[in-house]
């Protein structure tokens, strides 16, 4: 069995310096007081210790993106596509929960008859390097959602936390190329160490059969009680690695031309489902909070066959009113169907 290739943690900046020759490398870093994935530049404050506050989906599904240019001169006008492709990218230091999140985004953007090329072209240009997670955070519960923190098989390359070094094995053609580059640069050496066990989780919940249970709970009073304290803000949706809703809006440069943009949106806002005639299928907080958790734990699994919550715990960490998805799962588990 081939021995594991690794490089000492001290050499991390060297590895990154090499990588940025060929691609934009997104690393978890501290930017203006908030930990997020950002393109590495020499001197970036790298945060390999804990998971980032905001998910890495920005690299593939940015919060604001131009989709086409339009112009209107009197009665004629024109539409001009925008090239969605980006240079080669590397998402470095993804944890299993974020990798699982990307898989959920793949299902939405790349399947079911249409490909969202904006996501698709970025996804293809990106090499995903996952990192084994041995020290789960206070709000992490990926294990309870069927995600293995130690490693994830869907990434292009998997890194292991060997204490003072990082092991790396390639999993795909892109991964192979990357490891070959690292080998060529002489940064890798064999090691016999292996990644230790992942520490115990503070937060555990039994998500078994949650989808089926929620199918009978549309009119359960649980939603009314839970939603009372919610602020209906977009914090949870915008931090979440799997939330994929977007709005299409306009930005006018002047009276004649402008740009159509795709920007993040969330079902928690009141005007999200508001129709032109004034009808709103989800008029109050109860419906909107129910929609969020039903979509994560029932509608998405029904449509794509996997839970849309990967247990990264970011929404739990930042929710102003401590409305936790783990509580929803626990309460739904205990509740009799349909109240």
């Amino acid at each position, binding site marked *: 069995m081939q021995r594991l290739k690794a490089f000492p943690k001290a050499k991390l900046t060297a590895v990154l310096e090499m990588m940025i020759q060929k691609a934009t490398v997104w690393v978890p870093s501290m*930017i*203006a*007081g*908030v930990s997020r994935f950002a393109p590495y530049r020499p001197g970036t404050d790298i945060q390999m210790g804990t998971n980032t*506050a*905001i998910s890495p989906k920005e690299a593939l599904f940015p*919060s*604001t993106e131009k989709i086409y240019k339009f112009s209107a001169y009197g009665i004629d006008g024109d539409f001009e596509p925008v090239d969605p492709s980006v240079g080669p990218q590397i998402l470095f230091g993804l944890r299993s929960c974020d990798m699982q999140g990307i898989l959920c985004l793949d299902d939405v953007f790349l399947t079911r008859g249409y490909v969202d090329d904006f996501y698709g072209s970025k996804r293809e240009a990106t090499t995903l390097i996952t990192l084994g997670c041995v020290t789960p955070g*206070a*709000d992490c519960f990926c294990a309870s959602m069927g995600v293995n923190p130690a490693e994830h098989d869907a990434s292009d390359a998997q890194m292991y936390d060997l204490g003072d070094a990082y092991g790396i094995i390639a999993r795909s053609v892109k991964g192979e190329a990357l490891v070959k580059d690292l080998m060529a640069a002489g940064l890798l050496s064999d090691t016999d160490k292996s990644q230790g066990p992942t520490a115990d989780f*503070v*937060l555990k919940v039994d998500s078994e059969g949650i989808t089926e249970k929620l199918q009978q709970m549309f009119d359960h009073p649980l939603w009314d*009680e839970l939603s*009372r*304290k919610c*602020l*209906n*803000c*977009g*914090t949870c*949706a*915008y*931090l979440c690695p799997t939330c994929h809703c977007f*709005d299409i*809006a*306009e*930005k006018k440069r002047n009276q004649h031309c402008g740009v159509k*943009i795709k*920007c*993040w*949106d*969330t079902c928690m*806002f*009141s*005007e999200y489902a*508001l129709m032109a005639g004034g009808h709103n299928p989800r008029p*109050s*907080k109860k419906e909107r909070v129910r929609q969020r958790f039903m979509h994560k734990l029932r509608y998405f699994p029904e449509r794509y066959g996997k839970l849309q919550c990967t247990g990264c715990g970011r929404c739990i960490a*930042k929710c*102003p*009113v*401590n*409305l*936790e998805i*783990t*509580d929803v799962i626990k309460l739904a588990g205990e509740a009799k169907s349909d109240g």
Partner: protein
Amino acid sequence: MNQITKEMRDLARELLASGEVKGLIGWTKGSRWYLTPPLFITRPEEAEQLYFDQFAVNNLTGLLLDYRYGDDKIALFVKGCDSRGIVRLLQDHQIKREKVLVIGVPCMGMSDKKAVTDPRQPVELPLLDKCLECRYPNPVIADRLIGGALVSGEPSEPKGLTASEAAKRGVGSKQADRFAQVKAIEAMSADEKYAFWQAQHEKCLRCYACRNICPACNCRECIFESDKKGWVNKSATPTDNAFFAVTRAMHVAGRCVECGECERVCPMDIPIMALNRKVIQDINELFGESDAGTDLDGKMPLGLFKNDDPEEFM
């Protein structure tokens, strides 16, 4: 602590049982030792879930906006800073005085959950900045009082059961430098200031948590919500976020009750109170000291004028 919790539960049980109120908003123990989130109860037996400690930091007044058109009477617990939100909502006519039963609670100063290192082991945490700089630890308005709380419309020392603990923990100890951050930013050069704010506005996600918890932001339909109004783009670029931040600061100018919740709930830790405090400092300097939300018939500085206002535009 449990003395206040006990009084809270008894009063809640009595109010709900007697039918004097149809609903009651308080706090309950959250899923962690450092979380005490809001709770809405309607039945007397649910009163057992009520809890109060140094993590019950949420300003509950914003939640009243969901019941502004209902006919039921709602009770809610308020600390000193929260109670100013009640005055704010009353002055903005968003809640009817007879539909709200305000219960004043003495405050021992709220701890900063961001300072938690070990999620399992409870440990004494430092106070939030807004509590160190607190000038209104006692409720400014209340129909009922528990835990020995006392109503005081003026800046005052903490009173009631938690007075000694609040003083020990340093509530209000840093009142003097409540504008310290504003002064620090003002001292920067123009480019440094712009760079500082540009970095903050790059982070902003436009999740509107700051707007949704603020008792002063109580419009039925916000101009930032529907893009058909044409004020601002929905995109979260730095210039649009700057437009949002400055516009919100001007909308709550003279009305912000300094409860500090916007800064606390911001997922990206943007110093929103620096903007609000800058406006408050300028209003105090230009138009005379005034604390929003402390006096029911107090006037809003931008709703009136004096002939001898400072003149800089001659």
